[in-house]
């Protein structure tokens, strides 16, 4: 059982403090992940809250067969997609807010990605298409396995492997264009 799942187990057994540990464990990464989907920090924060609310009000839905991180990121992805669909219908009114929050996003990025090299790569990753971006982020930054990534992205394992291969190739080509040097 991973650390998140054991925290959640303790929370379900009545230890309220375990929920704080859960939030400390996944709060930043989850918001950062959602923000990459929805492109709005405040919306990402709201959605992340909803993910944790889902843990409280539907405790029976998580059966401890996958890691809690995978489960949370799956909820986050689904909720982000719902949010984007909704935004398409009602129109996006968060542009001004995004501008204001640009500094905060950078702050969050600094918190999560301490390594300067990784941050530079992340900036290049942002120029890739959505599936490539997400698969690279989940596998190389969140360090989820291919199996776990396939669950989050609702694709099969083979598709994930292909996506990783193509995403790495696309990333390599972009990095080379920018004159980025790396070891083989």
């Amino acid at each position: 059982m991973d650390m998140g799942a054991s925290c959640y187990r303790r929370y379900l057994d009545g230890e309220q403090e375990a929920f704080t540990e859960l939030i400390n464990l996944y709060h930043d990464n989850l918001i950062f992940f959602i923000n990459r989907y929805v492109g709005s920090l405040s919306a990402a924060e709201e959605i992340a809250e909803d993910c944790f609310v889902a843990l409280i009000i539907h405790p029976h839905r998580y059966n401890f067969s996958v890691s809690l991180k995978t489960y949370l990121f799956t909820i986050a992805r689904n909720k982000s997609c719902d949010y984007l669909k909704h935004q398409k219908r009602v129109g996006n009114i968060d542009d001004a807010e995004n501008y204001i929050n640009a500094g905060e996003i950078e702050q969050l990025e600094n918190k999560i990605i301490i390594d300067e090299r990784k941050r530079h790569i992340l900036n290049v990753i942002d120029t890739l298409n959505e599936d490539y971006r997400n698969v690279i982020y989940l596998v190389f930054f969140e360090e989820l396995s291919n199996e776990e990534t396939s669950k989050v992205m609702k694709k099969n394992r083979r598709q994930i492997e292909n996506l990783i291969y193509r995403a790495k190739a696309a990333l390599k080509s972009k990095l080379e264009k920018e004159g980025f040097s790396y070891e083989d």
Partner: protein
Amino acid sequence: MKTNEEFKQSVLDKSRTIITHRRQVRKRVMTSLSTLSVIVILMSGVYIAINNNYNSQNDNTVITTAEAEAEVNDHQEIEDMLPTQIAGESCTVTLSGIYVNVSSDSENYSEMITDEAAVKRLTEWVNQLVSDNKNIDKSTFVITVHNNEGDNVIYLPDEKAFFNEFKDVIN
């Protein structure tokens, strides 16, 4: 951006609100369901009462009998048949007389009435009674009509009215 503590508080508040809302909705649904079930029970009670009342009103106003026990359910058929036979005018059956048999708690009386005028008058009276479709209580009073095809038993509601009407005929 919220701090972890603010974030946690916000999550807890949200979940509390959702849980409270769900409880209220569940409570409202349960109340509606119980109200609905009470209405259904009342409606079925009313239906049963109306149905019983209808059945009791139509329950063998006139009963034909060879043995004075067999009940005939088809009320309309008896009603159609009986007055014609009793009147003795428009059918070939010869009316031999009316046997008045009173068997109630207070009275125990029986007599054969053969006087033609009395039979006719009595027949008209009975016919009127049947056509008025009065609430006839079969436990109170019985008239047996004799003819050559068998007996017909008519249950009358009010024996006093009968005796007042026919005190000159019945001894």
